[in-house]
Structures are given as C-alpha cells and as structure tokens.
C-alpha cells in the first residue's frame, strides 16, 4: 500500500539527510513553541519506543531504515514542529536527487503527484463502500457501534458530515483508540498522524460534498475547507491528548468545543465566508495557539502551514 520512492530518483539512504543536507530548511525552533497537542513528551515517548525497537531487533536493513526514518522525523518534529520536519524532508530529498542524478524539484513533485493519484483511488473505494453501507441500511448500525465504544468517540465522529466525512471520522476514532490504548505517552504522538489523516480525509470530503460546483470559486472553497481542516486537526489532537493524559476534564472540554462547532456547522449555508467566520469564532483559542506556534517558525514553515 505504501509506494516506494522511485529508486532511480532517490535511494533508500536519502533519509536521514546527511549533515548540512537541509540546505535552506528552517532553523529549529525552541521546543517550547510546539503546540501542546504535539507535545514534546509524546514525541520523546515515541523516540523511546523506537529506541527499544531498535535495540530489540535483528540487523534487518529494512527495519533499521524504517526506524531511522521514523526516528528522524519524530526528532525533527520534536525540535521544530511537523511542518518544518516536512520541509526538511523535502529539501533533503531534493538535494540528494540533484546531487546523485542531476534531477530537481520537478522529480519530487512528480513523485508525490503519483502518490496522490493512488491515494485518490483508495479513497474513492472507501467512499463507495460507505455508500453501499448506507444503501443497505447499515448506516444506523454504524452509529450504534460508535455509541457503544464510547460517548467521546461518538462525539468525535459527529463532527464529520457526509459519507466520505465518516471515513475521516473513523480515522479520527482510530487516533483516539491509539491515544487511549497505547501504553504510556507514546499514544499522544502516534495519534498525530491519524489525526492529520482524519482531518485530511474530512477536507477531501468537503471538497466533494459541498464545495466545488455548488458555491464560490475553487479557491474560496479550498480556503473554507483548509480552515475547517486546521480546526478539526487541533481538536482531534486535543481530544487525543486528553485521553492519553487520562484527563477526563480536558477531554470533555475539547468535546464540548467540538459539539459547539457541530451545531454551528449544522446551521451552515452555502455562503463560504459565513462558514469561515463561524469556524474562526468557534475556535479562536485553538487557532491562536496554532498561529503563535507558527510565528516562531520561519517564513517557509509559516507558508507551508497556512495553505
């Protein structure tokens, strides 16, 4: 399922990048600038887990390489945040591609374009599966099951609307499952990727379900769903954090915020501008937190995060 980077472009040794390979990558920010939801403790716990895995594993090159990539990404994220970590990876990939075979950014871009196309096919299959469930009157059962696994999980699922949005809900549920079941603080970290995925799928569903073709321009729609995704991502991580900390009050507070947004979304109309305003008003605290963190990054990171 995970397509490999074309070996003719970048070999498996591109990560971690060699010293200085980051080139114009963002300088590490202080860890204090990392939002709470991306807590340093969670990342350190993940590093500890990876370290244990390294020490207890055999000399499998593939395993070592995989753990190196996870370790490096986690380490950079711990130092300067997720967006800077992504930027560094891209810069490292591009530099190695140029150094080794003389190719440039266009190769990297083409590679990810292909990956996107593959993922779109998979997401389409998931949406079709959901549509089939709905047609077969299984929709109600799904809701009952989510209720059975916990009120918090059910509430999290309700923030997504539409069939594809439920995929995002499931992935967010997954992040919560990891958060509350993976031993130690590692759950806080490992939920990050799932929360991102959940928000991401939700964003895709928004584009399909309500935006393009029914209202304003594509650009305006993208702005709407980007705002929503950022909003939901921060909520997802907050909820995950609450579970990992076993802090029921914090989790409950986050859920109350989610429910408030749900109510607002239910009343949304086709006017994208109004929707954005509602979202921002409903979650100004979380957005402020994100923006403050991003301000400590350099311009590249800020641009990457604010798309």
């Amino acid at each position: 399922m995970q397509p490999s980077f074309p070996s003719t472009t970048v070999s498996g040794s591109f990560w971690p990048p060699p010293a200085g390979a980051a080139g114009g990558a963002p300088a590490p920010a202080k860890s204090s600038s990392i939002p709470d939801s991306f807590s340093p403790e969670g990342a350190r716990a993940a590093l500890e887990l990876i370290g244990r895995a390294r020490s207890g594993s055999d000399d499998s090159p593939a395993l070592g390489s995989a753990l190196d990539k996870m370790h490096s990404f986690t380490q950079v994220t711990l130092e300067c945040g997720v967006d800077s970590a992504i930027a560094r990876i891209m810069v490292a990939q591009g530099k190695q591609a140029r150094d080794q075979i003389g190719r440039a950014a266009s190769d990297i871009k083409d590679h990810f374009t292909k990956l996107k196309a593959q993922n779109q096919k998979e997401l389409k299959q998931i949406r079709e599966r959901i549509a089939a469930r709905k047609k077969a009157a299984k929709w109600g059962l799904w809701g009952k099951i989510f209720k059975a696994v916990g009120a918090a999980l059910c509430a999290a699922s309700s923030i997504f609307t539409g069939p594809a949005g439920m995929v995002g809900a499931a992935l967010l549920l997954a992040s919560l499952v990891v958060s509350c079941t993976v031993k130690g603080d590692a759950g806080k970290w490992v939920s990050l990727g799932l929360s991102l995925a959940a928000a991401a799928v939700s964003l895709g569903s928004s584009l399909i379900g309500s935006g393009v073709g029914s209202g304003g321009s594509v650009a305006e729609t993208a702005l709407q769903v980007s705002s929503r995704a950022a909003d939901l991502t921060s909520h997802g991580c907050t909820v995950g954090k609450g579970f990992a900390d076993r802090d029921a009050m914090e989790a409950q507070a986050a859920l109350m915020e989610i429910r408030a947004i749900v109510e607002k979304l239910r009343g949304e109309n086709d006017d994208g501008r109004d929707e954005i305003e509602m979202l921002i008003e409903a979650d100004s605290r979380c957005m402020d937190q994100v923006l403050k963190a991003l301000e400590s990054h350099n311009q590249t990171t800020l641009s990457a995060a604010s798309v």
Partner: protein
Amino acid sequence: MTTATRDIEDVAKQVAADLRAGALTLGQVVGLTDAEVAAVTELAEGYRRRGKLQRAASVYGLLLSYTPYNAGGWERLADLQARLGNHPAAVACYEIVALLRDADRTLLEREARCLRLMGERELAAELLSPGNQG
C-alpha cells in the same frame, strides 16, 4: 537561497497541504517503502509471538500513524486490543478495517464477540444479521 532550493521548498509547501488534504500519508511523506513497512510489521509480530502484546500494540500504533490506510495492520491491532481486554478499542479498529476493505464473516464474528463482552448483545446480533453483511 538558490532557485533550486526555493523550488524544493515550494514542493514542501504543497506536500504539507497534501498531507492535510489526505492525499498523502506520513509514511509516504517520509518515504517508507513496502519493505520497511513489512519489516516494522514483522517486528510487531515478533513481539506478539513472544507474548509481549502491549509492546506489539504500541509498534502497530506507531506504524499505523504512518500508514493509516493499512487494513491488515488495523486488523492485527484489533485482535491485540481484544486480547488485551480493551474491547471498545478493538471494536473501533474492526470498524476501520471494514471501512478499508470488505469485512469477512470471521472479522464480524470477532467484532461481535467484543461487543458481547462489552455487554452489547443486541448490537452483536445485529452486526451478524444477514442484512448487515456483505
């Protein structure tokens, strides 16, 4: 800053956006290969075979944060959660598997068992009813 570096950073911006858009996963962004995913899976399976279930679950959780569309991984994590007695988590994982691929009878039975252990007998029966399969 060179033009080439700016080009790459432009790609980085797009990748960050694609990650948020669900068009890419963390595993794809960091460049995990199929062989590497398989190796981490084998590590988790090794823990499981040695009875270190919690550690196996943790490794699967880590892996799934990079490869969230990995149905096989979710299924193994679901089974591990069930064995660890965390039945709600197991049920949620089984539902994710069902989203990612067609759920077979044995999978539904395992999920139903967890629901029964949660005291949700009616829900378990409904899950296994003919109208809710396939």
